[in-house]
């Protein structure tokens, strides 16, 4: 049962409520599903001024409660901006995106969460603020691996996406049965191209495990090499053969494994094609 619903207007008020045990709420789209919880007080943080989207010289700055719709409507430059939007556009439906926030999509762990996939490929960072004002910034990969410990007792306040002055190329391939369905598998690639070779390769896989992860072995295989058709095919095969796939009653693991390989190949090819020589 929901015992209280707070709507503070300032961040420190919100943090004080969190310190007293209130559960933070942003989009709230998952609040009423699932089994009834024991008595809980909630603090809705969407009126604390955390919803802005800003473009700085060196990074894109997303307030944690910026809705996906606001992100899609914003003027986000570069391939980085386009990838953030691609991730946001793949989530659910319009009215859902009017409520779902970038912060919520990071903190609410679900295998089908789409924003962590693109943000991991973008080397995003997450700012967490704790009661008393202590601010820490973690790499998203650390944030995800720490689970709820990363923000327990505090709030995700901002997400940063570094802008790399157009030196990186990206590819994003997401597979679902209908267009607003959960992803069965997503592959998101990012890389830099120099002398026809790929560097700083990121290959993020989503919807295969409870959290998005980077296929580091495959990345290492590709690092510093030209991504021609043969190598891409090999990368796809390596993904299919080695990535761990958690069970999902909607589709056989074998199939999702194969899918991951195909999507990885396509995402890498797209990233390589998009990346401009430095």
């Amino acid at each position: 049962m929901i015992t209280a619903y707070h709507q503070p207007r300032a961040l420190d008020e919100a943090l004080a409520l969190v310190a007293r045990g209130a559960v933070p709420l942003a989009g709230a789209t998952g609040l009423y599903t699932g089994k009834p919880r024991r008595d809980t007080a909630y603090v809705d943080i969407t009126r604390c001024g955390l919803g802005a989207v800003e473009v700085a010289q060196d990074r894109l700055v997303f307030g944690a409660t910026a809705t996906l719709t606001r992100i899609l409507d914003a003027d986000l430059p570069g391939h980085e901006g386009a990838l953030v939007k691609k991730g946001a556009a793949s989530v659910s439906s319009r009215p859902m995106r009017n409520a779902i926030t970038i912060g919520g999509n990071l903190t609410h762990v679900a295998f089908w969460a789409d924003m962590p996939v693109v943000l991991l490929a973008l080397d995003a960072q997450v700012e967490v603020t704790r009661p008393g004002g202590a601010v820490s910034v973690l790499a998203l990969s650390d944030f995800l691996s720490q689970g709820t410990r990363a923000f327990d007792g505090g709030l995700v306040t901002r997400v940063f996406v570094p802008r790399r002055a157009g030196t990186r190329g990206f590819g994003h391939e997401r597979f679902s049965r209908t267009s607003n369905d959960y992803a069965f598998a997503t592959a998101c690639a990012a890389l830099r191209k120099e002398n026809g070779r790929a560097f700083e390769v990121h290959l993020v896989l989503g919807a295969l495990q409870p959290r998005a992860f980077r296929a580091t072995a495959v990345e290492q295989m590709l690092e510093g090499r030209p991504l021609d058709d043969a190598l891409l095919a090999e990368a796809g095969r390596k993904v299919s053969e080695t990535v761990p796939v958690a069970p999902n009653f909607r589709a056989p693991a074998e199939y999702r494994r194969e899918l991951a390989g195909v999507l990885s190949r396509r995402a890498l090819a797209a990233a390589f094609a998009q990346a401009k020589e430095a």
Partner: protein
Amino acid sequence: MSEPCDLKVVGRSVPKVDSMGMACGLEQYVGDHDLAGALVGYIVPSPYAHARIRRIDATKARALQGVHCVLTWQDVPRIAHTTAGQGWVEPSPYDTFVLDSKVRFVGDRVALIAAETREIAEEAGRLLDIDWEVLEPVLDDRRAFAPGAPVIHDEPEARMPITAPYLPKENTPAKAHMGDGDVDVELAKSHLVLRQEYSTHYAQHCPIEPHVTLGWMDSRDRIVLVTSTQVPFHARRISAQALGIPVRRIRIVKPRIGGGFGAKQEVLLEPVMAALVLATRRKILMTLTRAEEFVSRTRHPVRTGLDVGFNADGTINAVRMRVLSNTGAYGSHALTVMCNCGSKVLPLYRMNAVEFEARAVYTNLPVGGAYRGYGATQAAFAMESLMDVAAERLGIEPVELRRRNHIREGETSPVFAALGEGKPGVEQRIGSCGLPQCLDIAAKEIGWAEKRGKPGSGPVKRGVGMCALMQGSSIPEIDMAAVSLKMNDDGSFNLTAGATDLGTGSDTVLAQIAAEVLGVGADEIVVASSDTDLTPFDVGAYASSTTYLSGEAARKAALDVAGQIRVVASAMLGGPAEGLSLRDGAVFAPDGRRVTLAEVGLRSLYEVDQHQIASTQSAISHKSPPPFSAHFVEVSVDTETGQVKVLKYVATVDCGTAINPKLAEGQAEGAVLNGVSFALTEEYIFDENGRMRNPNFADYKIFNTTDLPEMRVILVPTWERSGPFGAKSVSEICINGALPAIANAIHDAVGIRLMVAPFTPDRVLKALKEKRG
């Protein structure tokens, strides 16, 4: 009706009478009625697929604060009935009780509860003290009738109320066998014999409004149920039967309802609500959740085996169709859906011999009921896929193969007479058939010749496929519809009909038909429908009967009323009544003098020889003239992911006269898209204990606006003499085309033949791999 004539209202897309009210949020659905003081009704679901309730003690449940009533099987009459909303005597087994001491699928009824809130009711359900004897479930339709399989319906009361095979010991609630000619002889002399088996899957209608019923006792000790139903009169009769009370003690009212598609051709909530209302004497609202809706009623999964013999020129010699239908835990619609697999598919083509052999089996799975298409959907997949296989093997173009074989105007099929619904059918000759034009127009519209056999390069291939279809219009000699019409002071009319508008627009269509006869605009006819106290009888909305049958009753009532109007008018104008004609809201003498209908109305009600100008007329049909349709589809197949997308879908439809073209198109468009998601994305995923794992829209996918193919529905008018103003039906047929047309298009694109639906990406990929070898 003999000849096409100059129609003024019929054939126009007049706005549906309730559209504006709906667009303004003012039309009343069940849940919008006065709910003050209403309790919540709840059905405690079975956690087991197959189990006996050895002992059930509701003491703690009843003691829970906020619980008003808990009914177990010991608290309600034990009267076997069927929930199938069909005419009496129902061609479905009486194998259901309001509550039983046995449960037969996960979600089956354990107990009924009325409480202050749903949460309290659910808590009370958890407080039931039950000794279960868990039984081995039957989850495989192919093993359901094997010797030694657990018997699902072992209760002595279970019986088939009509003369038809009923073999519960073999888990077989229905069997049928008919034939004409010698199939094996014909096969033996055929140039090509194909023997194939196709199978279809569980699906749900997904009306956006789930089943819902509001009930109370009125001041005269009668049970009033305001309910989301397609069959108000069957609901009244069967609820009375199930509780052992007289029919006159129940009133069923259908308000606006949020879709049905056959799910609500089921007397599902009404008997349990009547029981709860009687026990509590309180107003109660029972709404199924979406999860409960998914296991309320479903489409029968069917395996269709075909042996078909062709001559070298592609003409069919013989067809043997073998059907195995999984009816789930109860046998409602088991026999009839099974028979329609044959009766709505086999007559489409000429042949020298035909045989139909079918069995429906019980399993401990959700119950198959009536779902738009009703067997034709399942069997058309098989037949129209096999026709494509034959076309390829014979080297005959697929559309041409249909042309060489399909039934034509004036022709008949032995299947009509031999295969009814559990008994012999009704012979008929085809009075109208626009299929040739349907095929031509659709082929051109999709770009058949240009696109066929051109998959393109790259991993995503394209293909086109097609199919031909027929359905029926009402159940001949069985269905009956009645309409009443009375005249008002101002020359307007009140039309009351039992016919059930579930969003199909039947209220409007009936108004148009009456208006055409009476020479007025459709808005001069005020329609009220589907109240068992106030409207005359109608079997309800199923078997594509409303326009064809209820429409005919409306036409007859209007003709009779028109005759009475002429009598009054002739007294006013002089001259014989027969010489007068009705048009533009007036009655005209041959010399042009006229009286308005308002003048006739006032005179007849108040002035001279006062009487109510009114009529109640009934209609039954002696044939079930098929609408025809041709579906042509363009798909893309991603050969690396297995994803199939429909790019373009063209459906041409011969429904005779479209009384209201936009409504007819709307029926076709909705049915087509439902067929597409049925073919591609809808599926039930069961766990090993028979529980559905995905009873929600997050995991059971129907299409939204971002999934749409380019769709074109083209009406191809013909004139069906036996139908009102030349009309046939339109509401079901177009759901049947997607499975075969898409399967055929996939074959054109990538050369794989999918025989198991749905065409999920993993199935497609697997088939592609097998082909690559």
